[in-house]
């Protein structure tokens, strides 16, 4: 086992070990939380080292076990997966810090269970990011659904359970109902499921079959929240905020779009899709999702729900990037995975901080809150800018590439959608910022300050990252380029 | 019960005869129709007749259920044991040919043994089943 293979294995195992330790230390909160942070830190270091290796050209590969004849659980690291793993692990570290402040500040119950499942979810995310074939991807994708279910229903209320059922039903229903048969079909058609540059389907199937399989995959990957299989995401907002922040802004949803991009590029292959023309519809579906979700977001008063719909719309940016089948657009998609993650997590952190400090969940209650919580709302403003896609934030970088891709491939529709979406984004984010800073506080507003230090520190950090990515986009950009180069 | 007196006397004569006939059937099975199973049934019917006339409780004294249970099990064991004996003497399971010096003799011995096993099990099974059924009334009456 070479060094990078060891890192690959470590990325999967570290969170699991962490989870076990968290359970073991369950009776001593300080130790437990310390272990949580330590695990996250170790994972971040491991993944960063892995990313370095990947950038240096290493492509570690690890076969865990052969599940069935010719069907194995195998892992490998390539630039896109590395990007995703990097985002998830670094943001987990930040979230771990944030969560301590949030969970203690909010007096949540069953914290041990919460942290343990959180760690397990991360392991599953790593499995998705580093999977070497479709079946591994599918397996960890399902595992991610399963181990986030207890997090979604954490509060145990009837509402939470109802939401949990939607969450579960949509995600498992689509994946078992559509994705699994598509995978089986591909296996029967090609005799293998390993991701390969240029795709594995070329030469094996008729264009009609390609079209059918592509539809099954796209909607089978419910985590990408493409309309009409987006319902689970707003439902999942009943979860505690760290869950919404890391899992439903980063890990789970990105696992979805990541899977879409990965399958598009490494299973179907750009050339095959381009020549068979069976992916053109996706641009329209994704475009529709962007606009429709943005419009719905506009009318949401619950802050987290607004963020959720914003996520749905932003995810489709990534899907549309993949659907354009153009190198620049693919780079944009890859970058947007990063950009959206750090910005959206900032926003969720801010929403959580508001809940903890001011006990407010509605947009209409936020007048003047920026004076009480300047750091939080400042970070929120930066995150909003990134969502809209304005400089100097990360969102600008990725959108720029998407736009370039659209122009280069002559997709007028995409350009129009992007422009319209920018306006819509601005319309539902900037008023919040405006109200927070420039409206007066309502009379008799409760006295409160900032959220706990851990929480505020975390959201400041992520907002700083958002800005940093604008000025120093080298790392994600290098990964994106390497990915596109490999995908050809 | 006096009105059964004649019956009882006749039965007392008949029952040994039936048992004897059972044994005849048992051993004549090689040459004519019959064998362990039929013999077992006939033997059991002798007991059943006895039980019908003298009552299950008396019959149980003659053939205690515990004893019947044992013979019930022993019959199968005799049968299966014959098979093991064949194994021990180097043959296949239930290969009677190895049981004696020459094959035909062995077969004969084996067949007799297993027929005896069948006889034991069948007769005790039939007796058991009948006693249990007929005993229902008696047992309930004791409640």
């Amino acid at each position: 086992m070479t060094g990078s293979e060891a890192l690959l294995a470590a990325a999967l195992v570290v969170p699991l070990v962490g989870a076990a330790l968290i359970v073991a230390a369950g009776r001593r909160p300080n130790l437990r939380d310390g272990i949580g942070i330590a695990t996250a830190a170790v994972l971040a270091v491991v993944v960063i080292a892995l990313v370095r290796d990947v950038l240096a050209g290493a492509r570690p590969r690890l076969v865990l076990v052969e599940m069935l004849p010719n069907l194995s659980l195998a892992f490998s690291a390539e630039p896109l997966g590395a990007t995703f793993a990097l985002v998830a692990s670094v943001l987990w570290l930040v979230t771990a810090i944030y969560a301590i402040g949030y969970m203690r500040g909010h007096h949540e119950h069953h914290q041990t269970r919460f942290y343990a499942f959180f760690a397990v979810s991360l392991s599953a995310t790593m499995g998705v990011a580093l999977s070497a074939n479709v079946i591994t991807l599918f397996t960890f994708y399902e595992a991610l659904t399963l181990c986030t279910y207890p997090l979604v229903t954490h509060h145990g209320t009837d509402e939470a359970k109802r939401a949990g059922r939607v969450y579960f039903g949509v995600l498992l229903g689509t994946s078992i109902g559509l994705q699994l048969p598509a995978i089986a079909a591909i296996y029967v058609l090609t005799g293998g499921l390993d991701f390969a540059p240029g795709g594995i389907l070329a030469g094996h199937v008729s264009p009609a079959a390609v079209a059918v399989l592509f539809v099954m995959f796209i909607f089978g990957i419910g985590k990408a929240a493409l309309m009409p299989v987006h319902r689970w995401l707003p439902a999942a907002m009943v979860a505690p905020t760290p869950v919404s922040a890391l899992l439903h802004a980063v890990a789970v949803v990105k696992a979805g779009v990541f899977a879409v991009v990965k399958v598009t590029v490494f299973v179907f292959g750009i050339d095959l899709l381009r020549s068979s023309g069976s992916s053109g519809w996706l641009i329209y579906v994704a475009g529709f999702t962007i606009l429709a979700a943005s419009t719905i977001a506009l009318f949401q008063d619950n802050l987290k729900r607004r963020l959720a719909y914003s996520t749905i719309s932003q995810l489709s940016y990534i899907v549309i990037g993949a659907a354009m089948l153009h190198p620049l657009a693919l780079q944009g998609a890859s970058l947007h995975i990063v950009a959206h993650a750090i910005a959206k997590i900032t926003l969720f952190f801010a929403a959580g901080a508001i809940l903890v400090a001011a006990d407010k969940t509605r947009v209409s209650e936020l007048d003047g809150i920026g004076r009480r919580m300047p750091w939080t709302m400042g970070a929120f403003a930066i995150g909003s800018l990134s969502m809209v896609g304005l400089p100097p934030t990360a969102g600008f970088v990725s959108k720029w590439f998407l736009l370039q891709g659209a122009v280069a491939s002559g997709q007028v529709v995409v350009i129009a959608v992007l422009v319209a979406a920018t306006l819509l984004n601005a319309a539902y984010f900037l008023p919040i910022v405006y109200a927070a800073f420039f409206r007066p506080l309502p009379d008799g507003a409760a006295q409160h300050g900032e959220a706990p230090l851990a929480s505020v520190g975390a959201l400041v950090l992520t907002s700083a990252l958002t800005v940093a990515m604008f000025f120093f986009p080298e790392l994600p950009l290098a990964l994106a380029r390497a990915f596109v180069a490999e995908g050809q | 019960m006096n009105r059964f007196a004649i019956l009882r006397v006749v039965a007392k004569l008949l029952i040994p005869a039936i048992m004897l006939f059972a044994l005849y059937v048992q051993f004549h099975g090689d040459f004519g129709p019959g064998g362990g199973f039929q013999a077992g049934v006939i033997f059991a019917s002798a007991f059943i007749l006895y039980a019908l006339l003298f009552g299950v409780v008396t019959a149980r004294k003659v053939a205690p259920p515990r004893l019947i249970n044992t013979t019930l099990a022993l019959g199968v064991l005799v049968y299966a044991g014959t098979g093991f004996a064949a194994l021990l003497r180097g043959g296949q399971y239930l290969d009677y040919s190895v049981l004696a010096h020459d094959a035909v003799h062995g077969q004969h011995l084996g067949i007799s043994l297993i027929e005896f096993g069948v006889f034991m099990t069948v007769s005790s099974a039939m007796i058991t089943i009948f006693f249990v059924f007929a005993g229902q009334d008696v047992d309930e009456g004791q409640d």
Partner: protein
Amino acid sequence: MMLLPGLFNYWLVVVLMMIGFYVVIAQGNLVKKLFGLNIFQVAVFVFYISMGKIEDGTAPILVDGEPVYTNPLPSVLILTAIVVGIATLALGLALAVRIRNAFGTMEEDEIDAAEADPS
């Protein structure tokens, strides 16, 4: 019956089987069901024995000078099957007695009614 030609014998057996089968599935009394089952099985036994019969044959007990014997194998099989049948019957009757003790009836519909009402 021997004199009847061809397949008639089998057809008769089929009719018997079906009468038994009908009693099993259509009748409500448990004891009657069991005896219907018995008829069904006996009919099957007759079917086996019929197929073993050979014209002008004689019972397969070897004697000098008798050239044609009836096929012994069906007899053997049916001997076994009869035993299995009586075993099943005994067990079924035992169950019927227990059911009667537990439910106070041996009619299927009354049992169904008693089951639906869990008191």
